[in-house]
């Protein structure tokens, strides 16, 4: 084994560029990450495995372990170090979980390796003043930037969801979250905006994502009699079970969930009938079926290749890879710093997600939020909200 490890540290190959991704490949997030990896592979295949003068090799790293069933800090740190030590690696696609990004960001920053996340939405990763004290500087020990994300952060999704609820005439909400970085972050932002808008927050509790059922919790929710129940969390943190227990407790309120639940598995695990017409899912950007131009073409190719519509994040995996490939191509040399700078400077990018660019923090300039409703066991388009266009008066 030692020998194989040594092989990983051979001198750089001048004709080869490697792109790695670090996503949870075992455990409950596997289905989501499968679609992202498909998106990444499609982007590389479309470039015919070449970028500028280089061959492209792709390595799909796992940041979860079977024992944990989800991402672990050790695996994520190991992946980041491994990428950093391999002189051929020029881009790091990942991570899926915002918590994992906090581990690898400071490591990759030291080597100026470009990191493009298809799925991190926690605000503190990039936005000064919105996260914990010291964020995001703590993730940039060199003071330089190397991290970008192609997905809009939660400061879009949380508050806009509250605006949407206000528009629908919701007066009383009950907020739940899964106590994870992502879910709790978004629920807190939703909570804050509701209070600003004068929506009454009846309760805000966190669930244990390992619990089996939430019948008692739902009895409490029922007693509070809300118009809307918001759950900040993912399919993996028991979104489906909550919906089930909500129905069996006889709660008629609307259920609203963020993009972590926007996957077919969520509907399957909740049971379509428990969500029918009453579950609204938000999503930063446009859903696969609403994409136009390049995005539409991607969805079509994906469907031909795999016989199903891509999950929402597949497009982000694809887009993240396109960004990395473009930066490498434009630099034309294996210079990590130059590649990261090139990527961060991307403006007016015509990609699968539409026309967008990166702002000074490495965040996407896209400010669109889609609301879908579950009907007939599928996500159906409901509304597009634009942060720039309509600030709702409280």
């Amino acid at each position, binding site marked *: 084994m030692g020998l194989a490890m040594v092989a990983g540290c051979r001198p750089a190959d001048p004709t080869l560029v490697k792109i790695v991704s670090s996503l949870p490949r075992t455990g409950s997030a596997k289905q989501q990450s499968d679609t992202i990896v498909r998106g990444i592979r499609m982007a590389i295949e479309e470039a015919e495995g070449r970028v500028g003068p280089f061959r492209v090799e792709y390595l799909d790293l796992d940041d979860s*372990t*079977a*024992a944990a069933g989800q991402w*672990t800090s050790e695996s994520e740190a190991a992946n980041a*170090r491994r990428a950093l030590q391999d002189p051929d690696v020029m881009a790091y696609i990942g991570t899926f979980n915002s918590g994992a990004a906090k*581990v690898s960001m400071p490591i990759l920053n030291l080597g100026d390796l470009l990191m493009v996340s298809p799925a991190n939405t926690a605000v503190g990763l990039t936005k000064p003043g919105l996260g914990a004290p*010291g964020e995001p500087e703590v993730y940039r020990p060199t003071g330089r930037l190397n991290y970008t994300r192609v997905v809009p952060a939660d400061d879009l999704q949380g508050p806009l969801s509250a605006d949407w609820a206000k528009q629908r005439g919701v007066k009383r909400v009950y907020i739940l979250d899964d106590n994870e970085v992502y879910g709790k972050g978004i629920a807190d932002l939703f909570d804050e905006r509701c209070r600003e808008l004068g929506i009454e927050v009846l309760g805000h509790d966190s669930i244990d994502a390992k619990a089996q059922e939430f019948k008692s919790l739902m009895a409490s929710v029922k007693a509070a009699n809300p118009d809307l129940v918001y759950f900040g969390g993912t399919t993996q943190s028991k979104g489906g079970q909550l919906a089930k227990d909500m129905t069996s407790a006889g709660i008629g309120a609307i259920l609203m969930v963020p993009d972590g639940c926007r996957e077919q598995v969520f509907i399957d695990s909740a049971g379509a009938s428990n969500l029918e017409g009453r579950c609204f899912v938000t999503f930063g950007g446009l859903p696969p079926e609403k994409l136009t131009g390049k995005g539409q073409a991607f969805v079509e190719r994906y469907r031909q290749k795999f016989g199903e519509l891509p999950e929402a994040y597949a497009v982000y995996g694809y887009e993240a890879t396109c960004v990395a490939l473009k930066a490498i191509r434009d630099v034309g040399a294996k210079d990590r710093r130059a590649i990261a700078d090139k990527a961060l400077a991307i403006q007016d990018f015509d990609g699968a997600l539409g026309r967008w660019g990166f702002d000074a923090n490495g965040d996407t300039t896209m400010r669109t939020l889609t609301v879908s409703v579950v009907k007939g066991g599928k996500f159906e388009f409901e509304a597009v909200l634009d942060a720039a266009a309509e600030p709702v008066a409280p």
Partner: protein
Amino acid sequence: MKPNRPATHDATGAVPLRHWVWAFVCERWDLVALSVLAVAPLMVPALGGALGGQVTTLFIYCILALGLNVMVGYTGLVHLGIAAFFGIGAYLFAILTVPMYPFQMRFVTAAAISALATAGIGLALGAPTLRLRGDYLAIVTLGFGEVAKVTLRNLEQITGGMKGLNPVPPPGAGLKVGGIDLGLAFAIDPRWFYYLSLAVLAGVVVAMRRLEHSRLGRAWVAVREDELAASAMGISATRVKLSAFAMSSAVAGLAGCLYAASLSTTADPNAYDFNRSIMVLCAVILGGLGSIPGTLLGVALLVGFDTVLAPWADSAIQQWNINPSGSSLLSFSGWRLAIFGLALVLVMRYRPEGLVPSRRMAAELHEGHA
């Protein structure tokens, strides 16, 4: 501790060299292992990469397991919540060092304080519960583990909740020695942490050996073998058990400090859950209760399997393109749990005292287990 010398004299009475070498390796396995591990980073470049980080994690788990061994191995108290003390150590250390808090102590001071404080928490749990019999005590430790995990998660203002506390500065942050910025060196090159953890591990091994043969160590074993007889000999069973509790917790807390420092974050409280306790307990039992080399071997096999071998095998399968469709039946991690489980079952079937049983333990356990 010294194994019998193998029958090394041949007919002429001379000792063949290979026998002599083998006897030396058996007897001084510790020095041999230490020197191999000490030169390894200079010989194996991969240790400067991801592998270095993984091996460092192994060392840290070895320290944790040696701590657990004090309770389970020496004193015979089953402990199902060692990860909680590991976590408490990590969090205390983080509180004493992260920029968010005003303390920002140096590595050594912070580590010493957190190890001591963890011992204090161990005492606080141990004092009221030590009169419980075997499996009931085990359940109390399990319960404590769950309580600690939930509390760490929910006391967000103090522990950062699921975000954990970060960034935990590397040892020597801001110190310059001979033109090298120590903090930066620790952050970039995993070999620094490799040597630090190896040194701490070696220190713990030496301390454990000393303890094993000390008055206290013999009292632990006496209480394990026969509490009544030990009390009759004037040993205070409660005090002896409490000291085992404290020692175990302190060593686990120390391991936690290293863990947080090497990851530069406490990670989230789920990193210190029941699974982790069980993994370490299995490593100690698999290796051989009460046996230092056994414990180290147990960790190397079990934790090494999960953190070193499995990721390597997965990426090897991927690189050789054996599994283009991504089926979990063809990936190594798809079978990881079964291989792991089967290994536990088989070792216990054929070596119920563990791979490297402690001699004292083996002799005693063969008499029965009433």
